[in-house]
């Protein structure tokens, strides 16, 4: 859109009042910064809750129907594996074991770990990136793979080093790079059978059955068949992720607390911006009345005020996003446990919210400006 001479006047009116201009931009910057920062951390935390699902990567997960989220481990009977394999549309089905255990380190201290036992024949669920050692060595006696981030909590062991899990030696044969889980526990990968050896005996020791549907199979049909034939619940990878995220959002205080902080950021930003912009408008009321007297029409005034609010909105948004990105990058680099994810949807949503704050502020000001009589300029 072409910038008219009166648009330039509107911008000069805005920028010329340096104190208020800075206050309005600062209000929006603060609001955007807080929202982007808090929501990025929140999304980062939520993403971590589903990290194991992406690491293991199976397309369909079969589990107990009472499960509420990925960590709500409900062991299955070992017969479940063959039952699932017999369901039409299943190309393959393999067992998966997941458990949280404690490792005893050489210095005698204990550290919680996440143990993942994958099918020894197919190695379905194996980590994609091996940064040291070899995947094939997982078949060696007592062999485990460990995630790179987990090394720190285990005292930086090297390849070949050992520690104890449930009184059994675990020897590191590979270091892998995988997504960090919610509690940042060291992740230990081994074969399904060896995982059972590391675990105290239980009657049911199968956590999930991982399934690949046949290429021509309908997922909906497959899920239905699994339910009817085995009484178990089949979920796609995406469904399990959604279920897990929904659980953390609705059944824990995380969602509520982050929402309150984010809402406070919005309210404080909107209040500062609205109040300052309103004051700016009121203080310039006589000038706007003079412009009206000199022939500036209603729509031109509306355009001028919208332009002013859009400019502070865009500037505040840019500064807020820039400051939040800078801080998030620094923290992600300096703090190993810090997590934050800023998806484009968050930036678009925040832009929408910023424009909403600006629209409210502009409406407040316009209400006064449009009501002021041009004859006001002749009154002292």
């Amino acid at each position, binding site marked *: 859109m072409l910038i*008219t*001479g*009166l648009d*330039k*006047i509107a911008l*000069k*009116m805005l*920028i*010329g*009042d340096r104190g208020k201009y800075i206050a309005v931009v600062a209000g929006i910057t603060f609001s955007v910064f807080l929202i982007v920062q808090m929501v990025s951390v929140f999304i980062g935390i939520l993403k971590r809750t589903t990290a194991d699902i992406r690491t293991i990567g199976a397309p369909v997960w079969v589990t107990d129907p009472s499960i509420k989220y990925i960590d709500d481990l409900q062991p299955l009977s070992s017969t479940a594996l063959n039952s699932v394999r017999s369901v039409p549309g299943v190309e393959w089905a393999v067992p998966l074991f997941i458990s949280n255990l404690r490792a005893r380190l050489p210095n005698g201290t204990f550290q919680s770990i996440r143990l993942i036992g994958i099918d020894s024949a197919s190695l379905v669920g194996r980590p994609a990136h091996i940064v040291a050692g070899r995947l094939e060595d997982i078949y060696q006696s007592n062999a485990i793979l460990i995630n790179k981030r987990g090394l720190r909590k285990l005292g930086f062991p090297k390849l070949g080093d050992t520690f104890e899990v449930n009184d059994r030696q675990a020897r590191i044969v590979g270091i892998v790079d995988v997504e960090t889980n919610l509690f940042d526990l060291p992740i230990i990968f081994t074969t399904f059978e060896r995982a059972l050896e590391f675990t105290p005996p239980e009657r049911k020791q199968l956590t999930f059955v991982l399934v690949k549907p046949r290429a021509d199979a309908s997922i909906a049909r497959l899920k239905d068949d699994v339910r009817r034939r085995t009484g178990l619940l089949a979920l796609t990878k995406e469904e399990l992720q959604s279920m897990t995220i929904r659980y953390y959002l609705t059944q824990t205080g995380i969602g509520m607390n982050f929402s309150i902080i984010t809402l406070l950021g919005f309210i404080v930003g909107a209040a500062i911006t609205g109040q300052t912009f309103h004051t700016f408008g009121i203080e310039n009321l*006589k*000038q706007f*009345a*003079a*412009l*009206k*007297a*000199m*022939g*500036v*029409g*209603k729509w031109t005034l509306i355009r001028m005020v919208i332009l002013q609010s859009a400019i502070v909105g865009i500037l505040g948004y840019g500064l807020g996003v820039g400051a939040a990105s800078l801080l998030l990058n620094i923290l992600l680099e300096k703090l190993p446990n810090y997590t934050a994810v800023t998806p484009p949807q968050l930036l678009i949503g925040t832009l929408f919210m910023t424009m909403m704050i600006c629209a409210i502020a502009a409406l407040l000001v316009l209400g006064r400006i449009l009501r002021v*009589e*041009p*004859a006001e*300029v*002749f*009154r*002292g």
Partner: protein
Amino acid sequence: MAEVAVALRDITRTFGSGDAAVHALRGIDLDIYFGELFLIMGPSGSGKTTLLSIIGGVLSPTSGTVSVMSTELTRLSTSEKTRMRGKKIGFMFQEYHLLPHMTAAENAAIPLLVNKEPWNNAIKHAGEYLADVGLGARSSNPVEKLSTGEKQRVAFARAIVHEPQLLICDEPTAALDTETGSHVMGLLRKRALSSDRCLIVVTHDERIVPYADRIAYIVDGKVTKVISGQRKGAAQ
């Protein structure tokens, strides 16, 4: 006889209603001609400013008709009146109402910008008018840094920059000393009056009476007399 620029017929204006009603104007009949510097004088509260607002099209009368340059204002919509003010009327306010944080040229250029003249042309054109009123060297200065007299001249340049046919001035000399006031009135006659233009000034200031072609006295919302002035500063 010159053509009528402003014709007022039986103008009344009442503010409020019932017992609280204030009758600011009570039947004003006036003809103001092109080429004329017309002074409206009267005590405070007599209705001068209300009359000026009605002539300028920023206030509607309660009854009566107002014709400005052959256009009956009472028949125009709000937006038509706004457009007419932008094109044909110039305003010089008592308190100037210059836009702060802007230069003298940017302020003086506003009527041109209202009429959609491109920014650079408008600033250049406004600069020429400022030079005419002796502010050429200060056209790039922010208005806050100008003296009262200089602000007055910026307001004057802004009022005439689009060469309006009707110039309305509210107490143009109220804040000025005698010498500067005389200078402003001389400037008004010289720059804002011609055979197809008309200048209406509301004032309390007796010092500027000699510059008028005619003077109307208003008391309690009625014109009590209209007399001829001395036309000081008029071209011979």
